[in-house]
């Protein structure tokens, strides 16, 4: 309503919004601040580091020029002019990789690949299932639809024991390939219901007449899905992929159950938890790792957000 607001109202509004932002953003600022502080500075309540320290980031990203302790014999061997530069580098690398560092890159890659695969497979399966539930008519459709709604709400913790026992039962848990396949399948099914749900709701907002027009134009329904529905849903498909990606990126429960003994294949949540509980006084590294884990999600969110804003069906149908 076009009422002139008083000064008191404005001050109150400003204070409330400031308090809200402080509450929401403070933890992020705290993480960023601590990730840049030297150990001596941790207890300092000020958020601004007395000296900015990038060591934690450098170490996680493998940018530190690590002092490689080479045995004398190797040093002598390296001085041999017969050895080429590549061979020399390879030998030094060998000693470097044995150094006790936290392989953040490796964990990130593990998590990224697993999350990406989950997002792709889940979104693909969900697209067809959601289209079927939203648009096609057949017996039992509402039962299928309700089942998806139900399993959407069944938490992973209820399936933990049976899924583990199933993996053991068919011998998938015994080796790393089987374990990864099991885990990927579990991530897919953990994200599938939400993906079907979101996409189903989205498809229902697309006017039926668009597919009808395509069919009149000579395309079969399945062709209409590929030429009209999927291109038109790109923003939503990306959003759904983002959700699936984040769910997988976050997942700790099944990763901890299935990957415990395969250290090289740890995902970030598992690795960070291990790092956190195994060593003391490494706040800068943990906070830097937190920031780096947050980053891809932030980027993905910004991208997906832009797509959502661009709007899907606007304009094609009369408002």
């Amino acid at each position, binding site marked *: 309503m076009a009422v002139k607001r008083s000064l008191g109202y404005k001050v109150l509004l400003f204070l409330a919004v400031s308090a809200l932002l402080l509450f929401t953003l403070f933890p992020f600022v705290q993480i960023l601040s601590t990730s840049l502080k030297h150990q001596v500075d941790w207890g300092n309540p000020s958020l601004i580091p007395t000296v900015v320290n990038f060591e934690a980031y450098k170490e996680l990203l493998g940018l530190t020029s690590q002092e490689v302790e080479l045995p004398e014999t190797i040093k002598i061997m390296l001085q041999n002019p017969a050895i080429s530069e590549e061979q020399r580098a390879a030998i030094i690398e060998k000693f470097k990789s044995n150094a006790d560092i936290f392989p953040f890159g490796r964990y990130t890659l593990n998590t990224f690949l697993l999350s990406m695969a989950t997002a792709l497979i889940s979104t693909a399966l969900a697209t067809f299932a959601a289209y079927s539930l939203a648009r096609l008519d057949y017996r039992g459709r509402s039962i299928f639809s309700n089942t998806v709604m139900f399993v959407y709400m069944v938490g992973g913790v209820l399936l933990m024991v049976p899924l583990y026992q199933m993996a053991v039962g068919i011998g998938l848990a015994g080796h790393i390939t089987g374990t990864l396949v099991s885990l990927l399948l579990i991530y897919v099914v953990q994200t599938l219901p939400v993906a079907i749900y979101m996409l189903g709701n989205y498809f229902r907002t697309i006017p039926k007449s668009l597919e009808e027009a395509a069919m009149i134009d000579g395309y079969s329904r399945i062709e209409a899905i590929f030429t009209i529905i999927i291109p*038109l849903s790109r923003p939503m498909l990306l959003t759904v992929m983002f959700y699936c990606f984040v769910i997988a990126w976050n997942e700790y429960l099944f990763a901890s159950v299935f990957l415990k003994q395969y250290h090289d294949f740890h995902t970030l949540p598992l690795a960070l938890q291990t790092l956190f509980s195994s060593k003391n006084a490494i706040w800068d590294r943990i906070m830097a790792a937190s920031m780096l884990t947050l980053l891809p999600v932030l980027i993905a969110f910004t991208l997906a957000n832009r797509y959502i804003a661009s709007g899907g069906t606007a304009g094609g149908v009369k408002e």
Partner: protein
Amino acid sequence: MAEVRLKQLVKRYDKQEIIKGIDLHVQDGEFVVLVGPSGCGKSTTLRMIAGLEDINAGTIEIAGRAVNDLQPHLRNIAMVFQNYALYPHKTVKDNILFGLRKSKVSRAVMDDRLKQVATMLQLEELLNRKPADLSGGQRQRVAMGRALVRDADVFLFDEPLSNLDAKLRHHMRTEIARIHQNLKTTFIYVTHDQVEAMTLGDRVVVMWDGEIEQMGTPMDIYLNPVNTFVATFIGSPSMNLIPATYRESNGMIVMADLELPMELLPGVHTANLKDKQALYVGIRPDFFEDVHYASELEAYWKLPERTIELIEPLGFDKEVSFSIGDQFVKARLDLRSDLQAGNALGLAVNPERILVFDRDNGMRVN
């Protein structure tokens, strides 16, 4: 180009019949308009022809072949949707060519047709835009273009102009009539607007409640409606229906204080009427004439003078209201009649334009 035949077509939703067994034969190259109030089943009929609704009984033939079992994409039809249904992610050009791409015509033919359609519908400037960047009228033209570019057997139009404002609608109506005159292909056009139906159709099919009430040329339907539904639905302002009774003793149709001699009316067989039978006398407002200017007054039925109760000026015409008994009646007179409310009004009607209906079942009796 092809003819379309509907035979005993039935559509049910939850056991309720929406289309109650209709028969229709659309000739090759004919422009047929299905018209009726909303819910009469005209759009459903069109969507059944397109294959977008399944058929519960009866057959549809296009170009002599039964298409009941064919999915829409195999029927070789083109359609303009009420909401246009343009593909939002495709440019105007790609929207128009989408159907041709599938039918695998050569590049040259495609360009040629696109150019033809774009010129015909004045779309040249818009080809690279997306639907969101177009005005309502432009979107409508693109929707038309998408249909017309195809070499379809039948062109279907589902209320294509209902989302346009009055001026644009009138303009596009003329355009569509012109396009059909040039193309001479089979058009089936659905509308609830009787003016569109009258102006566009070679033949008009009036539907009501899942049935065909009447089909015929626009003039036939205007002048000779078979029942009160068609009589009042077609024509604006609507036909006056004046309650009346037949008096056998002197062969008069009595409307309150008025008496209309039966012998004036052509085609009414008194044998079909019973004494005191309840009737409606139907007279279109357009067919009243001011006695001062009436052309052939001798043969006309002259009403005793009425008092004007209301005048609604429309420019060239004016609608003049008066009463016959309790019934409000409208007459449309032109500029020449310089009248005011309260004035006495002398009117006459060509008896050939007077229709008589049975009041119980609404059917024509003359």
